[in-house]
């Protein structure tokens, strides 16, 4: 009798784990990529409290069915689009997929879904970027902008390393790779929390001004900025900007560098903003968000720098390699996805493998 009860309990535990999970991949009818195969092997849902935790582990195999080379692709991964925690995305930058070629995209993340309506997950194409910077897709996650900036950074960095190869030879390229690897390893990261919305702050607050790194070729000049500091939290950043270019600007991103009590600097977050700034006009970027650092951290200073500018004609400005060679930026700014990919190739395949890769473009 007792052993029957145990068997029943085991069966109940297994049944609680197995939830019926529906999943699908959605591509538009005129999609430039075709789904060849999909493996949902590790995807499952677990009911906890009033929600499903949907663990999405899928591997897609896609074919470039367009006539152009694919440079980047983004998929939205949705369990419940309007629920916080119900939406994620997976992007693959630095691709070079010729027409007709097949390429993989791996997905591995966890989403949340309220328990009513069962467990379901949808992987939906958000955008494809081609080598001529043209774009296809619904762009609901602003993936066009993100992928275009990645591609511009990739071109800039490949050009930079090719020039080093031409002028300083293999030894020069090797030194540049070792320097990049060393910078990537040295970047400090204390851990951080980011919260949107207004805070109910009980600790005393102070205002701390931003210092700005001047980039002479940047179309935007940041003139003044402050954030409110309370303990180890910095919130409500507000930055005054001026368009010093001759073109109207519709988007910009400012990098936010924080210095702690030990003198360590790290790139805490980016401040993106949709703007409408005519040439010569000034404006303000403000965000209702807070960055929290571990309790022992004391924020001593903050620095800002312009990292991306988008013009109304659809073109973008990104910092040049010369600007990024600033001593402070070199320590804190994340290398582009392409630079990280190239350093990985150097580590795996050596100098000759890297030179072969650079010759492809």
């Amino acid at each position: 009798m007792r052993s029957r009860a145990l068997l029943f309990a085991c069966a109940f535990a297994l049944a609680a784990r197995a939830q019926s999970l529906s999943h699908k991949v959605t591509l538009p009818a005129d999609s430039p990529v075709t789904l060849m195969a999909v493996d949902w092997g590790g995807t499952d849902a677990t009911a906890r409290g009033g929600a499903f935790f949907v663990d999405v582990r899928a591997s897609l195999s896609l074919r470039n069915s367009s006539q152009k080379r694919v440079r980047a692709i983004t998929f939205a991964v949705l369990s419940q689009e309007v629920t916080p925690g119900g939406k994620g995305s997976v992007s693959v930058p630095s691709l070079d997929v010729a027409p007709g070629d097949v390429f993989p995209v791996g997905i591995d993340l966890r989403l949340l879904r309220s328990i009513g309506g069962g467990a379901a997950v949808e992987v939906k194409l958000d955008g494809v970027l081609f080598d001529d910077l043209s774009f296809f897709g619904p762009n609901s996650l602003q993936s066009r902008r993100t992928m275009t900036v990645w591609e511009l950074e990739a071109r800039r960095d490949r050009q930079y390393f090719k020039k080093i190869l031409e002028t300083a030879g293999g030894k020069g390229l090797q030194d540049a790779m070792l320097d990049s690897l060393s910078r990537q390893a040295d970047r400090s990261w204390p851990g951080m929390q980011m919260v949107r919305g207004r805070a109910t702050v009980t600790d005393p607050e102070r205002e701390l001004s931003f210092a700005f790194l001047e980039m002479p070729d940047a179309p935007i000049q940041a003139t003044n900025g402050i954030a409110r500091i309370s303990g180890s939290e910095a919130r409500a950043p507000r930055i005054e900007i001026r368009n010093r270019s001759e073109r109207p600007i519709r988007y910009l991103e400012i990098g936010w560098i924080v210095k702690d009590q030990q003198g360590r600097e790290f790139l805490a977050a980016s401040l993106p903003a949709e703007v409408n700034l005519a040439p010569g006009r000034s404006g303000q970027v403000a965000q209702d968000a807070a960055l929290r650092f571990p309790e022992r951290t004391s924020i001593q200073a903050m620095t800002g720098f312009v990292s991306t500018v988008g013009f109304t004609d659809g073109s973008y400005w990104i910092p040049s390699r010369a600007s990024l060679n600033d001593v402070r930026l070199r320590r804190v700014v994340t290398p582009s996805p392409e630079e990280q990919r190239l350093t990985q190739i150097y580590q795996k395949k050596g100098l000759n493998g890297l030179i072969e890769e650079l010759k492809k473009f």
Partner: protein
Amino acid sequence: MRGKAHIPETTLALYVPGDLPLWRRALVRLHVARCAWCRQMVDVYRSDRARLREIAAEMPESVNWNKLAAEMTANIHVGLAAGECVAPRRRKQVSVGWRPAAAMAGLAAVLVCAWWLNMPSNTTQELGRAFHAILTGRGGVNTFPARDGRGLVVELSSSGIDLRENGSLVFGVSQDQAKLVDVSASVQGSASARYVDDKTGQMTITSVYAQ
């Protein structure tokens, strides 16, 4: 300085006849060896005790020792007989057999099995960290300051990105087969993690959205 505090007189009074527990006796002895005032009090109690013994030894002349001994013996017999009448019944010894133990072990196995099958590994890890923090007294679960109850929190660390609500993990990015090379946050409410596949070298960027 604690050296200035003296041992209470009640404790010293118990110490002198040896009525204190062993460990307290040792502590009092240590203190008395270093403290002149307490030593003096101990000497006073000892001399009082010796004097009392002497007084007690001098019994009154009128006492009939034989009669007193007979009365005491009779009282002891009466007390023993009365004790037998009111003595509690012996309780039956409960034997702990193997069956209840086996049932408990089975139940524990089912609970462990259900936890292992249903709970994500990071929840188990968090529980482990919580127990570790309780045992060691160090706050190892979350070193971030607890503030207000603002909705979702995007947490970035060298191990990736988590989305938390009221301290509990609701969303995670892992990419088991790949190597994490960077995490970044946007104050508009998103965070991204970059991974490189060790085999193919392909870069994948996974983003989460708090809103």
